[in-house]
């Protein structure tokens, strides 16, 4: 029971891990290359969510200093680092999609199983 309460209290961590597992599973098992790239993005986003959730405090405000006031701030470091993470994820996605375009030109399909079939017949 105590465990369950803990889990419910930290539901955003659970959501992030669930998304991560969904992304990883889809990425490794689906044969459609576009779906693999989408799953890669889900996986990366889940980690970003986790980081942002780590930095959040209940009732916190944006970390801007106001004279003469004691305010609870959220931790800005994870959020700002995740901006870098998003840029990295975008560049990987762009590169992966451009590879898929080239692969489609050569094989005429974006399905990995069909590509393997074509290659085995050569």
């Amino acid at each position, binding site marked *: 029971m105590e465990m369950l309460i803990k889990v419910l209290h930290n539901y955003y961590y659970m959501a992030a891990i669930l998304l*991560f597992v969904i*992304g*990883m599973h889809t*990425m*490794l098992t689906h044969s459609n*290359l576009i779906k*693999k790239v989408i799953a*890669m993005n889900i*996986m*990366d986003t889940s*980690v970003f969510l*986790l*980081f942002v959730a*780590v930095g959040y405090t209940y009732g916190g405000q944006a970390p801007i200093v106001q004279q003469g006031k004691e305010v609870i701030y959220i931790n800005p470091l*994870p959020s700002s*680092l995740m901006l*870098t*993470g998003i840029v*990295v994820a975008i*560049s*990987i996605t762009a*590169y*992966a999609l451009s*590879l*898929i375009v*080239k*692969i489609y030109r*050569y*094989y005429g399909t974006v399905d990995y199983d069909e*590509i393997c079939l074509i*290659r085995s017949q050569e």
Partner: protein
Amino acid sequence: MGLAQHFPALIIAILLGIAFLSPILYRWARKTSAPALITALSLSLVMGIVLLIQVHQGGTFYYHMGGWPPPFGVEFKVDFLRVYMLLVVLAVSLWIMVYALKDLEHELKTEMLGWYYSLYALLVGSMAGIALTNDLFNLFVLMEICAISACAIISIKEDRACLEASFKYLILSAMGTGCFLLGVAMLYMVTGQFNYDLVNEALPAAVEQYPNNMFAASSLFIVAFGTKAALFPLHVWLPDAHASAPSPSSAMLSGVVIKIYAFALFIMFYQLFPRPLLDSIPLNEIVLWLSTAGIMFGSIFAMVQVDLKKMLAYSSIGQIGYVFLGIGLDDTIALTGGFYHLLVHALMKSMLFMVAGVIIYSTGIRQIKQLAGVGQVLPLTMIAFTVGAASMIGIPGTGGLISKWYLALGALEVGRPFFVVIILASSLLNAVYYMPIIVNAFMHQETFEHEAKPVPRQMLVTLVIGVLAVIFFGVAPGPTLTLLENAIALLF
């Protein structure tokens, strides 16, 4: 000190800068782009040597990016081990680039060369960063740069096998970095730091409260670095990627790129996780058995290959196992052997891929069967192959023997002679698949029936340098081993 104290940052700045300039130079001043890249690589190598001298004189030191001390800024740490890794990366990549300048002309379209130089400089710069950085998030960014540029130097060839292989590599290494970032999140949650030393200080207190985070993070790190360094069950991307790439890229990927991740995993284990915690989880044991499986299966898979480059790629899976074996045995002597193997394998495997490149350049042959009698037309090349293969097997006088010797001594030191048997068995397996090629190349009775183009002198000179280096590190291992022993003594 003056400028010299900024060398850790300058090495990376120069390489990333030349990555930016290369396509521009290639577009408007074509003759200068290759010399500019070689100059940048040599300059960073010289700076690396200066760093080694600095560490030798003044001990370990830290470099704060932009003058911001941690926990605010990114920190670089310069100690013996990191400088050693840095020098291996820079020296081997300079050597491969000298070879690549000739080889790439026939493997790539001419207008792509400038882009190749750019990607190559990015790859080397990011690896130099991974060797020096002392910050988890910085490591993540550098790993992503390294992953994209490593995939791109495969797919730049643009034939169908390359594209498919580099896509597979990209997906699996994206999975690796995803796992790594999740692991970092696990550690950041409980420690609130990214700097290795500060995480290391904060972990013991944090683990008492949240033990599961540490377990999750360590297993995620094994998956992340294992995927990228082709630790046994996670190696599936390697054979296709390394075999289909242009030969200089294969040499770079097999020789250096997989090693840097093994090094990063080592740093995680020995500098990030506090020692008592590491002893409480059997992490080393996991790495040990996976590497053992890799050593055996890599060699067994290599035996059944018909394509020369694919055989070399499978052999890499076995050989990276030795580096992990050093980490797994968790002993100073074994670690010395593992890190020595990292250098020797970088040299010999790069050289073997260069030999494969020369054979493809000259005769266009990739199949092992057709190589019979190739020694008649390419004698120097096949002598280089013989030396490389001898070092793989571990014949006295080559570097391969020294590292295997130290690994075996380390295994005996911790009282596990089983791993000595594994090392011996895998040496025999190496002999089984390398020897027939050598014997066929030189002893074949009939004349070689394929046409052979003359090989440019520049390519042969790089091979000769490789032969000399492999023999040098087999005959005079003393200084390097002393350096490594000093480096590893700092960690225990």
